[in-house]
């Protein structure tokens, strides 16, 4: 009797649920994508937007059979603008999922708006230690890295290459200090000097370069994103430091290299940087992504682009798992956590804080077959590396 009742109730529930599930398949999926489209950093946003376009091309503009639309907004590198644009995307455009975000301070300002709206946030770049640690959330995922991992990998490289002494130059702001702390955490040699320069206005590095040369360090470590990279590289050459090897993080990439080549800054050739990805990373997905990007836009994508491509592909995997029903948050979350999609970096897993546990590589600047400057993978530095802030995140890994 009891069994029959349970069966009957179940059947009834199923009968009720089935048509609902059919109806709940969304008519259109809207993804809000916050990035920087104006100013000097606009080149980053352009690369991300191009890569999202490639991802959509590969998906035929559909996720799990549902047409998908990506709405881009410009944060102007300002936290308050980023938050405002996030609110607009969430409440006016009624997007289903939020993604993008280059800057740590912008994503920190916008985080709560997304969490309160009960939507997923797939971060495509910003690797702030706070969201990897204390501020982790069940609905927030990253397709990039935590800031510290990249300079930590560089510290290991320096140890392996027998670099005994180092001179550090970086801008004096949150990310700059993070990068310095990261390399100091793993580098075992002696740090002969450290200069933190005024950011972002200081573009003259004559004083710092003279000190670096006078210190007679084996190598120089820098972190200079954006336009400062080229100014630094150029002055490095002019100051006659060409014999001291330069090691960089987040500075020499597919966005800065074409400009350096245009300016004939040949001293950048042969320099080293670390990253989780490079245009020549040998995975089938990456080969297709890079080839199609180059065909469409005529240049190499950067890691910003690779991460944005992955963000869209990760979202696709979750939408398909939920059969296009975006209300199935738990199903989607479970799918996100599996990271079971074609990532440009190959297979990786998510840590308890929803940041990738992944490999990091040493990259060298070379000229490709056509003479274009690009970065090429030299060797793997870390296998399955997890960031140090994961332990500060209260979520438990249950997948």
């Amino acid at each position: 009797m009891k069994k029959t009742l349970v069966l009957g109730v179940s059947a009834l529930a199923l009968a009720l649920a089935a048509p609902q599930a059919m109806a709940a398949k969304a008519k259109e999926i809207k993804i809000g994508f916050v990035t920087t489209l104006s100013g000097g950093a606009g080149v980053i946003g352009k690369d991300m937007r191009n890569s999202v376009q490639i991802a959509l091309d590969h998906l035929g503009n559909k996720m799990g059979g549902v047409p998908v639309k990506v709405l881009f907004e410009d944060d102007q590198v300002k936290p308050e603008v980023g938050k405002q644009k996030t609110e607009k995307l969430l409440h006016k455009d009624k997007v289903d999922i939020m993604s993008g975000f280059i800057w740590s301070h912008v994503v920190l300002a916008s985080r709560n708006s997304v969490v309160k709206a009960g939507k997923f946030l797939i971060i495509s770049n910003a690797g702030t230690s706070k969201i990897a640690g204390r501020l982790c959330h069940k609905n927030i995922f990253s397709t990039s890295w935590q800031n510290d991992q990249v300079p930590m990998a560089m510290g290991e490289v320096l140890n392996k290459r027998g670099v005994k002494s180092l001179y550090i130059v970086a801008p004096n702001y949150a990310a700059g200090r993070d990068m310095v702390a990261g390399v100091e955490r793993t580098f075992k040699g002696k740090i002969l000097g450290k200069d933190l320069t005024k950011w972002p206005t200081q573009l003259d590095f004559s004083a710092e370069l003279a000190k670096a040369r006078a210190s007679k360090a084996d190598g120089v470590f820098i972190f200079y994103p954006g336009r400062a990279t080229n100014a630094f590289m150029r002055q490095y050459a002019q100051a006659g430091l060409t014999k001291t090897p330069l090691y960089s993080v987040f500075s020499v990439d597919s966005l800065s290299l074409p400009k350096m080549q245009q300016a004939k800054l040949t001293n950048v050739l042969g320099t080293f940087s670390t990253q989780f990805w490079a245009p020549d990373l040998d995975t089938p997905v990456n080969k297709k992504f890079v080839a199609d990007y180059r065909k469409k836009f005529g240049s190499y994508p950067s890691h910003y682009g690779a991460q944005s491509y992955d963000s869209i592909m990760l979202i696709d995997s979750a939408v398909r798992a939920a059969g296009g029903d975006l209300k199935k948050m738990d199903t989607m979350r479970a799918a996100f956590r599996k990271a079971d999609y074609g990532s440009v970096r190959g297979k990786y897993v998510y840590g308890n804080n929803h940041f990738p546990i992944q490999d990091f590589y040493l990259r060298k600047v070379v000229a490709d077959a056509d003479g274009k400057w690009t970065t090429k993978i030299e060797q793997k530095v870390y296998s399955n590396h997890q960031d140090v802030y994961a332990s500060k995140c209260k979520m438990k890994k249950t997948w």
Partner: protein
Amino acid sequence: MVDPHLLFEQLFNGVQYGILLFLLAAGLTLVFGIMDMMNLAHGSLYMLGAYIAATVALATDSFLLGIAVALPATLIVGIFLEVVILRKLYDRGHLDQVLATFGMILFFNELVRLIWGPAGIEVPLPSILNQSVTLFSIPLPLYRILVIGVGLAVAGFLYILVVKTKIGMLIRAGASNREMVGALGIDIKKIFTLVFGLGAALAALAGAMAGPIFAATIGMGENILIQVLVVIVIGGIGSIRGAFVGALLIGVIEIMGRSFLDDLFKLFLPVNAAETAAPAAASMLIYILMALVLFFRPQGLFPARSG
């Protein structure tokens, strides 16, 4: 304790940086002093000069030709601005001038974005200039030596122009007493236009020279303009000599602060605190100097109007 080689090299770097500031300050101080005109868009002309020089240099592969085109082109833009916009602002207050020229900054930044895109331009140098020469066993960047040479030549040219020629006499007279010069039957309007054009050309020269060091980027003028204003306040408004001394002072203090303040702080602070405090303190030094000058000598070190 301090390596004398390093000290000399940093002195050289400071002088070089000061010279670059001087190229900008010279034009601005003339406009300020003679026309009593607050021109915040001076930095935009600097940016324009850098972009034009870079574009021509990239197209023709000649850095020299880039400068040769940038100077007259920016001069024409400057004269156009003076005749069409600024002339109407002379009788207004400083606040109106600030507002109008600030609007021009926004306009020029967007214009440059429209024409050249958001990314900025790298300026290739002839490879001979991308090297350093060793002087007393100190490697000095050849290009920076060139910048110093050009700056000194400009200073010499301005000295002769202002002190030895009739136009210079009128400029000096204009700086001392505008109304009187007008009353004596001199066409002060023409002098204003000439001075503004000259200032624009100097800004373009500074931009073209700065391009191969910093690259031409949107907003490059605003960054440097603040320091240029400090130079003018310290040197005395309207005084070329003041601009020259002020620029060298600021350049040397800025570089010396960045070079040696952290070592100095380490003498009495823990290493980590010194590393963080020094850059902040170094960037304050020039403003402290400005405050001191304003307190003890509010008219500046070489006030133009004192005679």
